[in-house]
């Protein structure tokens, strides 16, 4: 008898186990990976399924048929159970169909949040109401049951339970975020969805298979083909319904051999989206005309047309077209550089020009010179802007062409709100489409001037020439000078006081140069002018050499600097996170920060919602941030991303132009379960 008792005791489950349910073709059990619970340390619970050979249970997306298991947890009020963390499934062919599921013994783990203060609690009762469907190729049997487990609370180091190896196996098959070096894009046409993964250094592990979270994404049973491309591979998967609407983003997991990665890639492609991007780019180009850096140039060129005789119309048209060609050619050159550098594997985004303080200094000098020309201090270069001259004197076709080039150069610092999206899209596209988007942008920029030269009605509505033109011309110098102030401020963020000093010296020398060239002509003055110009260039050159390395970004103020590791850590802790991708030279970003993100109301709401603020400052080149931007299908700032802290939620991407109301509404929808 005593022996029987002993035997029964031995068979009694130790901590971490409770009676399993033996259902037809599957055993189901509630397990924990440790034998006890330690206050303040998260524990892992899991539902163990052990189907008979030839039978399977399902993944979160069951595929063509079947049903995912569901688990409803009951735990004491101060504890909370997270969502099931599904290990990577296998694809199970069923005749002409395919299912996603688990054929062997599997644990579906879920995290148990354990508060530090569990005073007076000796044990934690967990119950799970589980529903499942177990199938083989022939039949399916639904099951349901309530499982219980009592875990003792113990301040000591918990011991691994008998189920720990199963948890270990589930962890090994748990999809992880893709390595930070990868960029993942998705394109789709009528019939095929393609995932493009780049940045893989190791040889491709096979098989490569994509498992979507949604049921209406791909044809589950269809063959997925892998094609090696430069620096990665492309996975082509037939779409679920060729005629169905294109999903906004592709979410699921990608398994490569034994590893699997969570994928969330925004979809580009399809003629509709391409057209949208082209339209957006054109609108962005139009808008650029109104930016303080471009408007003065364009306004003056338009005045050049005032009062043209009928005979001059043809010439005006030719002039307009040449100007447009100048804009197009400059954009093509820029696109060519971008595509070439990207093909070389360097991640590069829109706005890259402004990440170099030397480029910023050169632009500041250019704007300063243009302002001097408008104020009448110098005449050199003025003709490009059409200052004071009639068309015929404006340097002919060559002049018109370089006006276009100038317009493009001065437009680059002003990234219009629309441009981020369109250009981000363009840069992950095949070269012809990228070129198309940049061409649309150029066309938008050139359009108003060309329209004026082609439609006499517009020109005839312009006021008669007179003294006011001279006044306005001088007035327009000031937006340009404002741009100089802004560029200098940008450079101060990048290189600190010595860079500012270098730029101011450059401007001083340019002023001197303008004065000398206007005051004296020929002879020795040319020599002096050349000397001053060289000194000005040298001043810019010092930026490359003397640069304050320790520029402290305005971190503090509740914002943490961005790093992939830090973001991953926060997300693992299930904290809501707001990431602000910004740069000092991005005007939209600065406006959003001043008018929305730093207002007391928004800051208070952020604190109330327990949101961690992370700032990804892209003022200087940062490959980590560039890659993060690319993961959201962007190639420029601003980008605002709000993570709810729940793993099952996709991050919310806020619009590029923020309002306080919008941000507050988003925060209210967070429904945060504040971390203990």
């Amino acid at each position: 008898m005593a022996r029987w008792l002993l035997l029964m005791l031995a068979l009694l489950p130790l901590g971490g186990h409770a009676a399993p349910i033996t259902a037809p073709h599957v055993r189901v059990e509630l397990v924990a990976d440790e034998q006890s619970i330690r206050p303040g340390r998260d524990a892992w619970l899991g539902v163990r399924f052990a189907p008979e050979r030839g039978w399977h249970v399902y993944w979160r997306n069951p595929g063509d048929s079947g049903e995912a298991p569901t688990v409803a947890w009951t735990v004491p009020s101060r504890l909370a159970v997270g969502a099931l963390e599904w290990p990577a499934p296998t694809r199970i062919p069923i005749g002409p169909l395919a299912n996603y599921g688990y054929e062997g013994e599997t644990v579906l783990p879920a995290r148990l949040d354990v508060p530090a203060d569990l005073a007076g609690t000796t044990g934690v009762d967990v119950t799970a109401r589980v529903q499942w469907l177990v199938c083989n190729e022939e039949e399916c049997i639904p099951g349901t049951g309530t499982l219980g487990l009592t875990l003792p609370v113990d301040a000591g180091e918990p011991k691994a339970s008998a189920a720990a190896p199963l948890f270990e196996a589930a962890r090994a098959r748990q999809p992880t975020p893709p390595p930070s070096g990868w960029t993942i894009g998705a394109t789709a046409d009528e019939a095929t969805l393609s995932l493009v993964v780049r940045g893989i250094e190791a040889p491709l592990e096979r098989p490569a298979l994509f498992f979507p979270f949604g049921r209406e994404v791909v044809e589950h049973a269809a063959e997925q083909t892998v094609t090696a491309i430069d620096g990665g591979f492309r996975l082509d998967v037939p779409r679920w319904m060729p005629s169905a609407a294109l999903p906004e983003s592709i979410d699921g997991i990608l398994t490569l051999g034994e590893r699997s990665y969570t994928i969330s890639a925004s979809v580009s492609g399809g003629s509709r989206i391409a057209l949208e991007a082209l339209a957006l780019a054109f609108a962005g180009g139009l808008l650029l005309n109104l930016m303080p850096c471009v408007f003065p140039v364009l306004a003056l060129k338009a005045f050049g047309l005032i009062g043209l005789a009928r005979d001059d119309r043809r010439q005006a048209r030719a002039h307009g077209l040449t100007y447009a060609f100048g804009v197009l050619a400059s954009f093509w050159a820029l696109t060519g550089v971008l595509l070439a550098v990207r093909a070389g594997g360097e991640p590069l985004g829109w706005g890259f020009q402004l990440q170099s303080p030397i480029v910023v200094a050169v632009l500041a000098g250019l704007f300063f010179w243009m302002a001097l020309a408008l104020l009448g201090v110098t005449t050199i270069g003025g003709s490009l802007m059409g200052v004071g001259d009639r068309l015929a004197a404006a340097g002919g076709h060559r002049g018109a062409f370089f006006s276009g080039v100038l317009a493009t150069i001065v437009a680059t610092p002003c990234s219009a709100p629309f441009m981020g999206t369109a250009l981000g899209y363009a840069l992950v596209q095949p070269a012809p489409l990228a070129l198309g988007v940049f061409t649309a942008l150029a066309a938008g920029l050139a359009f108003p001037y060309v329209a004026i030269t082609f439609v006499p009605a517009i020109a005839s509505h312009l006021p008669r020439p007179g003294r006011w033109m001279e006044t306005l011309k001088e007035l327009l110098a000031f937006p340009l000078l404002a741009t100089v102030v802004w560029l200098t401020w940008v450079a101060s963020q990048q290189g600190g006081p010595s860079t500012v000093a270098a730029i101011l010296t450059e401007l001083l020398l340019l002023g001197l140069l303008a004065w000398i060239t206007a005051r004296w002509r020929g002879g020795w003055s040319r020599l002096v002018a050349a000397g001053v110009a060289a000194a000005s260039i040298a001043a810019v050159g010092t930026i490359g050499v003397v640069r304050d390395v320790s520029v402290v970004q305005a971190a503090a103020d509740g914002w943490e600097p961005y790093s992939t590791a830090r973001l991953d850590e926060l997300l693992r802790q299930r904290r809501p996170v707001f990431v602000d991708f910004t740069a000092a030279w991005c005007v939209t970003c600065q406006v959003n920060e001043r008018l929305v993100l730093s207002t007391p109301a928004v800051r208070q709401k952020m604190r109330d919602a327990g949101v961690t603020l992370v700032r990804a400052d892209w003022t200087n080149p940062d490959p980590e941030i560039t890659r993060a931007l690319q993961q959201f299908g962007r190639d420029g700032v601003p980008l605002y991303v709000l993570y709810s802290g729940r793993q099952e939620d996709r991050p919310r991407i806020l619009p590029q132009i923020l309002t306080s109301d919008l941000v507050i509404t988003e925060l209210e929808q967070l429904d945060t379960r504040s971390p203990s």
Partner: protein
Amino acid sequence: MTVRKTTLATALAAVLAAAATSVLAAPLVGQPAPDFSVADTKGKTRTLGEFKGKRVVLEWHNQGCPFVVKHYDSGNMQRLQQKLTSDGVVWLTVISSAPGKQGYVTAAAADAYVTEKKATPTAVLLDGDGAVGRAYGAKTTPHMYVIDEKGVLVYAGAIDDKPSTDQADVEGAKSYVLAAYDDLKAGKPVATASTAPYGCSVKY
């Protein structure tokens, strides 16, 4: 001559191999529904063509499948059949299970099931060789199709938006079939024309 035969045989083999490995290719919603010719439980040959001018619903069926059980034991399927057939709709229940597999039944057993469940289909089609199922790309039981009076497929997919075997989910589920039929009746294009079907795999 021999060469030609070999070529022909190779081509045939290739076609057969392709057919064997290919996934079910579903007809597109908005296209004419594939015609068929198959015996019903009364021994009568049924074709889609004979119902020209009427609206037709196809229901893929397997009485052993827990998803089908959910809709018949809750009375959901019968209510839908009753509602639509009394409105003049032709309701065809199709059984594509191969002989020996789950859901395969004799004509008498199929009729007995209809009587027992108080179901009211216009006819039950015995598609043991799976020809109709494959023509429609039927994946699951249930898998539902709605065809308009011109013979055009206007809906293909799930019966409703609650993919489960739980009878409690019938209440409050949105019936895609009913919604498609209502749109059709109102002369509007079907708003939700295709969804991913759910259920057991069809036992071809």
